[in-house]
């Protein structure tokens, strides 16, 4: 029964992977090799929320058999309307675990390995095991982190180190799907300016002339909290804190004759919640997972490289190729290897930088992740770092460590990985 089931389940997938179509790559070899490549591909899904539920389900139903999922959140009652892998009884449990167990149970033969925690908990060794990464995230910060991690993992001597990143995102009726080939194509950091910053109300409006219920909530959250509960860090997941903001906002609203504040609204404003729409998630998740299938099997050309979906006024989609930014701080200046004598002083090292043909840096400032090596301006920082000039490189950096160099003569910053000779 099980085997008959699975033969039926995968019949059409196998068909699609067993013969070339008009768009398939000429180098592609369809058939069992492709199918086993797909089934042995280990893929990572980041996020098991609105997008993540759809992505996990889609990947499992697309023939991926080894899926890992990371999410740090637990299930909230407000998730249940669209995060369909979760039930009332799951409230409070970690999303990654519940989602993994659900899909594993439903789609026979798939293995889903959950990790409950932050993506930042994991290092390069962890990310190295995957063939590709699919993201269903709600934060720009997390996207930037995984983007720069995957880019820094690319090792030019090892093609396996290149992990395609497929990123989905939704906001109400709008969404986007993009494919990023770390170091080869435009990355998240290159495209950062395309994200509209979250709309903010001027602080003085909040402080003096609130016009909307949201202004009163912002006042309670940003101003009243500081005045009255200064010593407690505000925690948007603490119901007592939200309740306090709600009550305080209500009182202020009364003073200004504003109505319409609800507890839910207070929570929404404070946590910056944008209403999520299940069908937008479904559209975007479908786009990201079919890209995952195409990239893992080479059966059809993949998205190059950005698809926007605008469903708020009719339906409009547009696909374009976002370009790499030459001065991208993440992928525009990959670290170059530089062999240095560790007994050289920083001062001499800076002089040698001035002689390098590609750089000819005249007035560089530089640092490692944890240390400011030398900063030419402002004066106080120059004074504080001047003594480093006389110190040997081995006292300041470790063998193999990366330094970042800025020079006013160049728009682009440079990164060097210092290898001790």
């Amino acid at each position: 029964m099980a085997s008959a089931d699975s033969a039926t389940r995968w019949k059409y997938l196998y068909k699609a992977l067993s013969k070339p179509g008009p768009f398939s790559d000429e180098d592609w070899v369809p058939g069992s090799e492709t199918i086993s490549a797909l089934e042995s591909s280990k893929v990572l899904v980041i996020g098991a929320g609105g997008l993540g539920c759809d992505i996990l389900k889609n990947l499992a139903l697309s023939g991926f058999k080894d899926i890992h999922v990371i999410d740090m959140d637990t299930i909230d009652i407000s998730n249940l309307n669209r995060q369909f892998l979760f039930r009332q009884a799951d409230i409070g449990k970690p999303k990654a675990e519940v989602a993994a167990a659900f899909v594993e149970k439903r789609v026979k033969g798939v293995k889903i390995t959950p990790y409950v925690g932050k993506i930042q908990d994991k290092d390069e060794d962890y990310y190295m095991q995957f063939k590709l990464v699919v993201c269903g995230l709600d934060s720009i910060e997390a996207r930037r982190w995984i983007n720069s991690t995957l880019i820094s993992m690319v090792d030019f001597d090892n093609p396996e180190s290149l992990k395609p990143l497929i990123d989905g995102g939704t906001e109400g009726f709008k969404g986007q799907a993009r494919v990023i080939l770390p170091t080869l194509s435009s990355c998240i950091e290159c495209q950062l300016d395309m994200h509209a910053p979250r709309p903010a109300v001027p602080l003085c409006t909040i402080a003096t002339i609130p016009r909307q219920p949201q202004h009163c909530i912002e006042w309670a959250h940003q101003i009243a909290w500081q005045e009255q509960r200064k010593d407690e860090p505000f925690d948007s997941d603490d119901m007592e804190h939200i309740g306090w903001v709600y009550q305080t906002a209500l009182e202020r609203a009364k003073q200004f004759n504003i109505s319409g504040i609800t507890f839910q609204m207070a929570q929404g404003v404070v946590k910056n919640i944008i209403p999520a729409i299940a069908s937008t998630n479904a559209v975007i998740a479908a786009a990201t997972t079919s890209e995952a299938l195409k990239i893992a099997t080479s059966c059809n050309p993949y998205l190059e490289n950005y698809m926007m979906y605008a469903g708020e006024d009719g339906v409009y989609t547009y696909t374009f190729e976002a370009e790499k930014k030459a001065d991208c701080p993440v992928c525009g200046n990959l670290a170059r290897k530089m062999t240095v004598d560790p007994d050289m002083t920083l001062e001499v090292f800076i002089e040698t930088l001035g002689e390098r043909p590609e750089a000819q840096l005249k007035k560089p400032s530089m640092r490692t992740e944890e240390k400011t090596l030398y900063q030419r301006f402002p004066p106080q920082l120059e004074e504080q770092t001047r003594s480093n000039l006389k110190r040997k490189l081995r006292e300041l950096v470790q063998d193999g460590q990366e330094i970042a160099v800025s020079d006013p003569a160049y728009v682009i910053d440079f990164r060097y990985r210092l290898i001790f000779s």
Partner: protein
Amino acid sequence: MLKIWSMKQKQQQAENAEGADGKKKKKVTAAQLRVQRDLQELTLGSTMKMTFPNPDDILNFTLTIEPDEGMYKGGAFAFSFTVNQNFPHDPPKVKCTQKIYHPNIDMEGNVCLNILREDWKPVLNLNAVIVGMQFLFLEPNASDPLNKEAADDLRTNRDAFKRNVRTSMAGGTVRGVQFDKVLR
């Protein structure tokens, strides 16, 4: 996947970069790199000083503004700058560390400057913020008040406002509120 790998190999021949052995060490973050560049490109002039409690941490520092003209001349006003790892997507957080009498700065040190909040864009840099901060002391603005009383004073009686500024800067009391002494 095959196609992507061969693309990579082609590019690899063209470039000379990367590939050190062993574990890679922590990289300088995009926010750090941007701040390093922004600091280098500042124009501070004689009225502004920056201090770095920890020179290795360039994301946290203090800016002291000492206006040499205007109503706040003679004072030294200290602001803490906190830049997070999401900079420049997020603006720097700026707070006045003293209690001062100013229409656009409240008692908690919050600052009402458009580019610190609603008008922040990643293309703006620390210099833009610092210029904006300086402008607040040259031209306090009564139409965007954070300290409503100070704004009312400025609007209705400019001379009284000036006197209040002098009193507050000397550590005196204005409208029953004692302010920090900020005279140099």
